[in-house]
């Protein structure tokens, strides 16, 4: 045993950058060939895209130094040989993309709401935030503040929702839909697994009905049919009707995702909780749901990202979200033919939000896994 003191290390060729390259990129000759081909493609593509989006692009002025006010002044329309993207359209229409037709004098309210949203999300995203408890109180009242701030009332001038648009609508729909659908989805998932036949049947019916219908149908349903069910004289705001439809849609999906997590919890967990004298709600809130939700993080984020992108469908009921404003801009004779720029910009904004969500879910999974061994593994 004494001679074994020297620690044996793995062969050098399998570790470090060289080892990684050798194993992953140049393992055998087909592998090497594919690697070289991909490198060649990237070499062709990256300079071209950089040139188009940045180096040859117009941002505010064209190559003659004039400020661009319509598509004819874009460098690439003045001289097709010269010039890339014409971002001036985004610059000129930036206000509409972010706020829609919100009155300019009141726009500070939207900006304030954006900043407050960031503060409201902070304690949810970082469990280690100092004074998290007080931040959380703010998170709970934030929806109320945001409602009055954006919509008006309590001394603020009213800004009717048909003036809202762009990123504002996208965020309102996305955030409210995800935030409301989560608790409703949990209740539906628990309800569907309930031993009481009436509750379980009602939840199953609701979930299956909503899931069996496309979101567009639900949006039309909200727009056209919901008012028929309301008592006479009560007029529901258009955006609220859409929000109801989006939330119902999302909660049905959320319910199924969480039900999947619930099914993964071993029966022993229920038995242990019951044998300690816990009631149904305590057992679920303290033992079952924390584990089930942890397991379901990837699909929860998946459906949330899906919803965030599906909010673009509201365009068909006449609400202009980010994509809607983009399409509206394209229809403007001043900016005809700039579809590359506009769709690129809209995609980029959506990508930033959805990529952020997906990275956050990875971080969350990693954080929650440390030191915790779930079930069998």
């Amino acid at each position: 045993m004494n001679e074994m003191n020297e620690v044996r290390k793995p062969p050098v060729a399998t570790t470090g950058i060289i080892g990684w390259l050798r194993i992953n990129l140049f393992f055998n000759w087909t592998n090497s060939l594919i690697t070289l081909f991909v490198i060649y493609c990237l070499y062709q593509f990256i300079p071209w895209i950089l040139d188009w989006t940045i180096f040859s692009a117009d941002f505010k002025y064209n190559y003659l130094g004039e400020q661009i006010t319509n598509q004819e002044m874009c460098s690439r329309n003045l001289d097709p040989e010269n010039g890339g993207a014409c971002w001036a359209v985004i610059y000129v229409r930036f206000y509409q993309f972010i706020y829609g037709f919100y009155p300019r004098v009141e726009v500070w309210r939207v900006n304030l709401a954006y900043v407050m949203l960031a503060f409201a999300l902070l304690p949810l995203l970082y469990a280690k935030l100092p004074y998290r408890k007080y931040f959380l109180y703010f998170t709970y009242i934030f929806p109320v503040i945001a409602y009055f701030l954006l919509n008006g009332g309590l001394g603020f001038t009213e800004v009717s929702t048909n003036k809202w648009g762009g990123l504002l609508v996208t965020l309102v729909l996305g955030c409210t839909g995800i935030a409301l659908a989560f608790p409703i989805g949990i209740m539906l998932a628990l309800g569907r697994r309930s031993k009481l036949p009436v509750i379980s049947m009602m939840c199953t019916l609701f979930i299956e009905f909503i899931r069996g219908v496309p979101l567009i149908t639900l949006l039309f349903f909200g727009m056209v049919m919901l008012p028929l069910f309301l008592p006479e004289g009560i007029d529901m705001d258009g955006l609220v009707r859409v929000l109801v439809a989006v939330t119902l849609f999302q909660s049905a999906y959320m319910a199924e995702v969480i039900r999947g997590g619930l099914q993964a919890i071993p029966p022993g967990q229920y038995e242990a909780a019951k044998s300690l004298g816990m009631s149904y709600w305590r057992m679920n809130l303290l033992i079952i749901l924390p584990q089930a939700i942890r397991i379901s993080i990837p699909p929860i984020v998946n459906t949330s990202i899906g919803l965030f992108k599906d909010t673009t469908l509201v365009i068909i009921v006449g609400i202009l979200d980010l994509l809607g404003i983009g399409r509206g801009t394209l229809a403007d004779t001043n900016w005809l033919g700039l579809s590359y720029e506009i769709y690129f910009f809209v995609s980029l904004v959506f990508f930033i939000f959805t990529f952020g969500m997906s990275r956050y879910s990875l971080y969350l999974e990693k954080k929650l896994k440390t030191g915790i061994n779930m079930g069998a593994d």
Partner: protein
Amino acid sequence: MSEKSIISLKNVNKWFGDFHVLQDVNLEVKKKERIVVCGPSGSGKSTMIRCINRLEEHQEGSIIVDGIELTGNLKNIDNVRKEVGMVFQQFNLFPHLSVKENITLAPIWVKKMPKAEAEELAMRQLEIVKIPEQANKYPGQLSGGQQQRVAIARSLAMNPNIMLFDEPTSALDPEMIKEVLDVMVDLANGGMTMIVVTHEMGFAKTVADRMVFMDEGKIVEEASPDKFFNNPESDRTKLFLSQILHQ
């Protein structure tokens, strides 16, 4: 007899589908009595003790625990469960909570104990099961024997009058069985009323006041350990003992 009994099962019957898993089971357990239940697998031993805290529902007969009859009344069931602790074969610790949180959870939420007091209680229970140094670890970081001892501590923290053990050492490596049994012997010496389903015959001989042998859903034999091991009445018991003791 039933006056002094803390647990009383009378003509208990239960079916899983068509399978008659408990057939006219009668059992009286007195306060501070230690009962060891054994028998071949599928004989209904686990089902019987799971009926005592209503993890399984019996269909005929009556079960009275500490003066409370187990019926569909949810309040009664909760009250019985507060009196009765249970330790499972698979430990069933809550993997998302630390060892300390596993133990304090029920005292805090079910008994409304202040957090500081519950934590103090948890540390005391961990000393009883001899692993106070593991308080801040998660169940997944512990060995099987340590996990089972945490499970015992978790049950004891609710200060139960009765402890049920459902094959507590069957999922453990041989090396770890002793550390769990030691804790159980201490508990028995401390005067806890215990019903233990186990195949650990050494443990049975040391602590049992009474042996219960079950087969095919019936209690075949009930006797003192001395009589049970040295002079059993039924042939079925003899066969079982000859097989289990020859291992």
